[in-house]
């Protein structure tokens, strides 16, 4: 989030305070990639956003299967439900602006999944954040880090996008991510 806003040097302390306390170490990572060229029309933006939300949904579903504790399973299920709602609002936005009528299934067929190829695998991503999948706090922290990356991506894209309609849509999705992030923060505080 900071790297995209003019910060000269940003370092992620791998493993966060856990690493600080436990003195464990995770190797350095240089990562970064943008999915958007900046020239997309509003319809294209929505398709890419939909595929990103699908990726998050798939991730939470796979984590739900992997978790052993019922509370953590429930938490992942709730997180995946939220992504379904995000996807629905993206589809509805697409229906609003598209000239041709398309049902949800038809829209899903148009969404390219190639955007999700390349980069870190789920396992590598988990290794990077190193969460305890049986700890609610770790799971929420992981979800917050993912949602923050999504928020960051949308905010960076908003700066890059030229089309005003596309920009509005991206800002709206970014604001939804922010609300989601805040609700995860409250959930963390309630534990």
């Amino acid at each position: 989030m900071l790297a995209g806003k003019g910060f000269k040097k940003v370092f992620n302390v791998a493993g966060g305070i856990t690493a600080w306390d436990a003195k464990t170490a995770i190797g350095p990572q240089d990562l970064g990639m943008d999915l958007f060229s900046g020239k997309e029309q509003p319809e294209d933006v929505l398709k890419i956003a939909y595929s990103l939300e699908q990726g998050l949904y798939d991730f939470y579903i796979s984590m739900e299967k992997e978790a052993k504790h019922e509370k953590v399973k429930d938490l992942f299920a709730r997180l995946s439900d939220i992504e379904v709602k995000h996807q629905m609002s993206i589809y509805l936005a697409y229906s609003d602006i598209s000239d041709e009528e398309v049902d949800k299934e038809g829209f899903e067929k148009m969404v390219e999944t190639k955007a999700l190829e390349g980069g870190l695998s789920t396992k590598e991503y988990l290794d990077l954040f190193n969460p305890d999948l049986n700890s609610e706090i770790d799971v929420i922290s992981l979800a917050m880090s993912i949602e923050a990356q999504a928020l960051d991506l949308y905010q960076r894209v908003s700066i890059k996008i030229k089309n005003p309609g596309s920009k509005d849509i991206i800002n709206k999705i970014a604001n939804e991510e922010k609300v989601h992030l805040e609700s995860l923060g409250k959930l963390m505080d309630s534990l």
Partner: protein
Amino acid sequence: MKWMQFLTPAKSMDFSQTKSYILQHPGEDITILDVRQPSEYQEGHIPGATLIPLPQLSDRINEIDPEKPTLIY
């Protein structure tokens, strides 16, 4: 599922690199940014860390000096 698209370009430091970086740079020359929730911060944080919980970061980003190296956790 691949995740690279979600990651902002930022270098990672492990514990020992972070510790030596902090020791080599005077406190006023760097920002140590704690983006966890306030309750977690209270339980323990890196000395000198500034707390801005992640959900508030995009709104409070102007509280941090972009010219200084920022270590975030």
